[in-house]
């Protein structure tokens, strides 16, 4: 949910909010919410909301507010909160707000638990060194909030609560949980909790397959076998009448994103990664940097060719999704149609094409195939 009404947001962190025009944002929020509701009409199984802070990169510092609105205006799709950034938030509050969404939606919550990207730790003055340990503890605590039949307390390393009994309770016994599997520790957490594992910003299909295979091995060590429904791959998507037009829209929007939306974030991220142990080891940090820069250096044609984005006509998109499924075995595809400053009409067009022409061709890909709109 980008704020795409600026042409230069600088490279400082945080991005000065004098650049934010609330009058323009009224229309933006309306469009974004309408598009999420429309995604259900187009056949999406899940509708996703994510959390980002203090920059035009995202206007959802609390995605649960948007999730609640979308829950109220839809009737079938799962509401994927993808998700609250657990290490910088109060886990009991997350448990409560997610439970509210579950009740408002009649049991459609899909609970995303994220560690977040580095700049969020600067935004909320949280210690990046603690991110994994907080994440592990917060997941356990939230699940306790949802499963305990009696009031309880929690004496932990980071969280101490002496008396908890959340109202409302969930409609579901335990919602599907979605977490990122980008690092060893994240993947281990996914496997331990039998959650859906998501891979995003993939520089190659081999990279995604490696992550998925690693996750599956961890699951076996934890005594269970994941199916396609436990693997989610995220991709950006532009569909238009011709490949050339889709390509032009995608390139312009990515360029805008890199030039305008990411400046402040990059600054904060550089500081976090240089000065802290946000990643547990240097190799992991370097791997992430390399992954992002490798992806950045690819042309659009190369990205399409390698199966890293969905771009082109509806026929091409269906084929790209089929290929991705064939190679990774993913049962869930997280599709981002709003990229950078892509226009609302172009987003709607992609959604329409997906609903009318693409999904009918890819739904047969495994019984559990699901698509989530971001």
């Amino acid at each position: 949910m980008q704020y795409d009404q600026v042409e230069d947001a600088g490279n400082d962190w945080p991005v000065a909010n004098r650049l934010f025009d609330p009058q323009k944002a009224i229309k933006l929020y309306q469009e974004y919410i309408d598009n999420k509701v429309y995604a259900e009409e187009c056949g999406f199984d899940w509708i996703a909301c994510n959390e980002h802070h203090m920059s035009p990169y995202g206007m959802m510092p609390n995605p649960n507010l948007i999730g609640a609105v979308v829950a109220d205006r839809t009737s079938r799709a799962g509401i994927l909160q993808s998700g609250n950034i657990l290490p910088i938030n109060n886990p009991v509050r997350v448990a409560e707000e997610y439970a509210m969404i579950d009740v408002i939606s009649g049991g459609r919550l899909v609970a995303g638990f994220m560690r977040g990207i580095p700049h969020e730790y600067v935004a909320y003055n949280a210690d990046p060194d603690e991110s994994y340990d907080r994440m592990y503890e917060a997941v356990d605590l939230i699940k306790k909030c949802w499963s305990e039949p009696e009031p309880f307390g929690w004496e932990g390393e980071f969280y101490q609560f002496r008396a908890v009994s959340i109202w409302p309770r969930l409609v579901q016994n335990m919602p599907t949980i979605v977490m990122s599997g980008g690092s060893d520790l994240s993947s281990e957490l996914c496997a331990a909790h039998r959650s859906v594992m998501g891979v995003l910003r993939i520089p190659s299909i081999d990279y995604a397959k490696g992550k998925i295979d690693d996750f599956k091995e961890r699951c076996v060590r934890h005594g269970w076998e994941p199916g396609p429904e436990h693997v989610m791959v995220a991709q950006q998507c532009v569909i238009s009448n011709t490949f050339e037009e889709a390509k032009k829209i995608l390139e312009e929007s990515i360029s805008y994103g890199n030039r305008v939306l990411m400046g402040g974030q990059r600054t904060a991220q550089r500081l976090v990664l240089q000065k802290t142990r946000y990643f547990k080891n240097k190799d992991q940090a370097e791997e992430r940097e390399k992954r992002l820069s490798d992806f950045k250096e690819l042309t659009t044609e190369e990205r399409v060719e390698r199966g890293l984005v969905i771009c082109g006509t509806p026929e091409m998109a269906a084929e790209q999704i089929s290929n991705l499924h064939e190679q990774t075995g993913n049962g869930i595809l997280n599709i981002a149609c709003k990229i950078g400053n892509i226009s609302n009409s172009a987003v709607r067009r992609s959604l329409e094409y997906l609903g009318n022409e693409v999904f009918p061709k890819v739904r047969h890909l495994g019984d559990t195939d699901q698509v989530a709109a971001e």
Partner: protein
Amino acid sequence: MTTSPYEVSGFSVETKTVALSTGPVTYQEAGRGTPIVHLHGAGSVRHSWGLQLLAQTFRVIMPICPGFDDTPMHDGVNSMSDLGKMTGEFIDSVVGAPADIIGISFGGWHAVWVAINCPDKVGQLVLENPAGFRPSHLPPLTTDPKLRFREMYVYPERLPKDHRTEEDRNRNRAVMADYHPGMTFDEEAHERCSEIKALTLICHGTKDGRIAPETVQMLKARIPHSHLVYIYNGGHSLESDQGERFARLVKDFCLRGESFIVNQKVDDAPTAAE
């Protein structure tokens, strides 16, 4: 000489004996302050990290149940209920007033019986991973020593030094059968938990492999004025695995009573006497 980070500098104990109507009871004492009676688990008295931390604030009194550590059994003390009555007399003789009680595992079960049989001897009650209430629908506990060890300790390196041999430990475990032959679920105690008047704190380690969450949830539901607190990353041996968290929680509970749920630094908080 290096000291373990899981030991409290200057911790020391005195061993004493008291004559009760059923026989002599050996006990240990550590620390000064408000008395707390600490009832041991199957391994008898252990000077765990958490216990040593509590002794910085409290006078911790640790009776050795008859039969453990080769002490003599008492005539007429043949059940958990009998043990509860005997401990009521012990509190009378050694403390001379109602005392807070902490019971760990087997000691938690023991403490339940003290609270049922001698309510006027008990101040507040802390049940730490209490044994004796394993629901029948759960599979039996393993007797394999290696598996049992893994279920007991998340951080075995934090265990206190123990002079006992494996044979000593096995003899201690065997003594438990004299009080509850083959019993895994104490129907009578379960039924009578609702009679407990003491404000009760039930602690459970999130990685306890011996006591099921269902047990502590059931006790929370049965004991009228009770709180259940999970100690994160604690195994069955909470006091050694998570000594600091355990001591912080129990100290707060014992000093502040029901207001321990209010966030307040213990050192700033008025004591019960104030």
